[in-house]
């Protein structure tokens, strides 16, 4: 007991001395625990599905022998604990199992497709942040203190409408207008920079609308702060006032929300990739869900969950850097 409390005390001292690294450590521990949970969850998934996933994946008229062989190949006829051990050791060797449908290693599928998904997801996230921040800030400046109620209505209605538009509908609309109608962009496929425009647009619009609204609310809060009045008293140029005094202070709150938008954005790739025949994991995931190809679904859930967790971890660290007070509050 004494040793324990001694250690706690020592840790507390350490935490006071190095708030930043202690913060990082805490977050890293949390990340590790979360990853373990994702791992277990993804393993449990295949066993929660009612019915026989192998039969379902192989199709109505698959020969009974083929079904049994594939079950054996997947180790589904072994005890659960052995299966979990096998799953973990496989993961350690970079083996995510094989697809029920194609019989191909899932790891390879991920290796070839994940970059394409990360490409559009990262670009869409970047666009979301780059557009939503100025848009929300400008809207806040224009509508602060109840000014321009009509602008506020237009802003709210437009962002709400964009949020309410299912992204696959948006994707179809964009294709009809810009690709088929005006032939400005390629219709589908991952060929060159121009083919990125429509998928990224379809993916980013709704999160942009959501984030812009949040940024506006955050900015309104900041604009009403005393220190903004102090800055106004200094009669600084508008650019300096808003970029130096307002923007950094709304960044923390808004970035937290932006980090939470990431899972939604990743989920969006599932539908959007399909419309644009984008060769990423999203379209593969949609196909494997429909085809009940559980090893693929399982691995995708694992990887996407990991991507989201790691991204949130990085956002957290970034926030810690931007706002040192948050690391101290954690203590």
């Amino acid at each position, binding site marked *: 007991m004494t040793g324990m409390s001694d250690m706690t005390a020592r840790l507390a001292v350490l935490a006071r001395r190095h708030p930043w690294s202690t913060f990082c450590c805490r977050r890293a521990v949390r990340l590790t625990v979360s990853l373990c949970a994702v791992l277990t969850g993804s393993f449990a998934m295949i066993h929660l599905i009612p019915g026989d996933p192998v*039969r379902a994946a192989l199709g109505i008229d698959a020969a009974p022998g083929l079904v049994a062989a594939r079950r054996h190949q997947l180790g589904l006829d072994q005890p659960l604990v052995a299966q979990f051990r096998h799953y973990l050791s496989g993961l350690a060797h970079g083996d995510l199992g094989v697809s029920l449908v194609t019989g191909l290693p899932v790891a390879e599928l991920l290796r070839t497709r994940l970059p394409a998904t990360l490409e559009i997801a990262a670009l869409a996230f970047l666009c979301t942040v780059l557009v939503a921040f100025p848009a929300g800030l400008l809207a806040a400046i224009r509508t602060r203190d109840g000014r321009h109620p009509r602008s506020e209505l237009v802003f709210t209605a437009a962002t709400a409408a964009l949020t309410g538009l299912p992204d696959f509908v948006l994707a179809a609309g964009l294709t009809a207008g810009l690709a088929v109608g005006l032939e400005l962009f390629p219709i589908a496929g991952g060929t060159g920079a121009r083919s990125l425009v429509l998928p990224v647009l379809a993916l980013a619009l709704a999160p942009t609308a959501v984030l812009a609204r949040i940024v506006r609310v955050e900015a309104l809060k900041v604009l009403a702060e005393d220190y903004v009045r102090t800055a106004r008293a200094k009669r600084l140029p508008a650019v300096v006032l808003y970029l130096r005094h307002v923007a950094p202070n709304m960044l923390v709150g808004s970035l937290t929300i932006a980090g939470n938008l990431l899972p939604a954005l990743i989920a969006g790739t599932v539908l959007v990739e399909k*419309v644009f025949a984008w060769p990423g994991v999203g379209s593969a995931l949609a196909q494997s869900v429909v085809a009940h190809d559980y090893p693929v679904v399982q691995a995708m859930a694992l990887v996407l969950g990991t991507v989201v967790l790691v991204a949130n971890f990085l956002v957290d660290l970034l926030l810690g850097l931007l706002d040192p007070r948050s690391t101290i509050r954690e203590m």
Partner: protein
Amino acid sequence: MAAMHRRTLPVRIAVVAAVIAASAGCSGNLPTPSASSPVVIGGTVRVATASEIASFDPYSAFGTGTARYAYDSLINVAADGAVVSGLATNWQASATSATFTLRPGVTCSDGTVLKASDVANALTYASDPGRQLAGAQATLPSVPFTATADDPAGTVSVTTAAPYSFLTRTLGLLPIVCPAGLRDPKSLARASSGTGPYVLSGYTPGGPYVFTLREGYAWGPGGATNAAPGQPARIVVSVVPQASTVANLLLTGGVNIATVNGPDRSRLTGRGLGAVEVPTVVGLTFFNERRGRPLGDPALRRALVAALDRAGLANVAAGGTGKAATHFTATDAVCHTDLAAANLPAGDAEQALRSAGWTRTTDGRLAKDGRVLHLRLITSPDVGATLPSVAELMARSWTALGAQVQLVSENLNALVNAMYQEANFDVVVGSTPGFLLPAAFVPFFSGPSPAEGLNFAGIDNPEYSRLVARALQEPDTAGCATWNEAATALFRSADTLPIADGASTVYGYRTTFAVGFGGAVVPTSIRLHG
């Protein structure tokens, strides 16, 4: 989007259809507006495919669809259904044996000469039950056989353990893998080892896949060569899952050749695209005849079928003006003839029910011996976009008769479970595998139920089984009459109900080509126009 989902057929079914498609010969020529314009020499033709091709191994479930580009078979089937030459110049078959005489001078893509023993080895390899080669099994006869070769004479001989009607159209249509490929089967997934007009030269997981033209090829269907002007030097196959995206790409020239079915076809007509219709059957319906199920009663089954508005169902199944199905095989399948209209039960359903002992209860429900008729009607949009609507219309008709219908439109998983595991259905509106040969349907209509067999509806039609046994003894199309008698027996006892004769369409943008059964493009027939 939804169209795409629903077009994702159960993999096996799609694969089987593709196998058959690939193994048949030319059955249509494409008259297109651009056919008269000058051809492009050494051009690239882009082809769209709906799902990823995980393996190009022609014997696997996936590689069969594109096998025609890189592999040849012993014979081919021409547009009129006639058998024409392939690797073999001569062939003859009975119900228990077949002999093929090889064309001399055939070379594999690695330059080695193809010998008769290589072909025999390929046949033996592909039929090895231990290897579970789904793609090959779907093409080969369902009876065991042994293949022998006489290299000096260039002949391959096959003897089967039991009679089988279509030895030429099964053995003869198997893609032949060269010895190098058989030595290293794993390599076949991403490279080709065949004698075909193209060589798989580029593989990217998730597509695109690139085929390049071979020099000096002269053993195509009926002696077709690679020397014709306008034949593309490269064929690029891209994965485009969504039907409307495929249609958009065709309109803008993003792809040259693609198959489209469903509502998108209406906006592709009149846009200068070439089009070939490929017959299909929509909505093959089965009734659960297992013990304890109400539809084990043939009289009830017949009355329910008679109560249906087949023309209306066909409209709904086709999504416009449809044609009631004539058979459970497509109109271009072997032995196809119009049997359904004449043999499916018709007439006054109410009358038929009364005479079978079914009466209305006071609250209007249909009952017999005190038991009310409950029907579980299942379908899945995953096997056909219009099928839920077809099922809904059926349910309405039967509800009008007084039946209690539970309409279930589920995902494929649930559908397959209901059919193969729990047998928990009374009526299933599914898709037809679209087999070329009537013999391929036999395990679905007779034999053991799952898990030992595929007869999930528990059909026990002694007449059908007797006629099938006789038909299998008759070689090739000589048995068609018997095969159709067998099918007639199924229709008469309402064991199966095909809904509509439909079509999917293969479109060409500035490209002409011929297609075989199921819409497979014949590689040597492709011409690119400027």
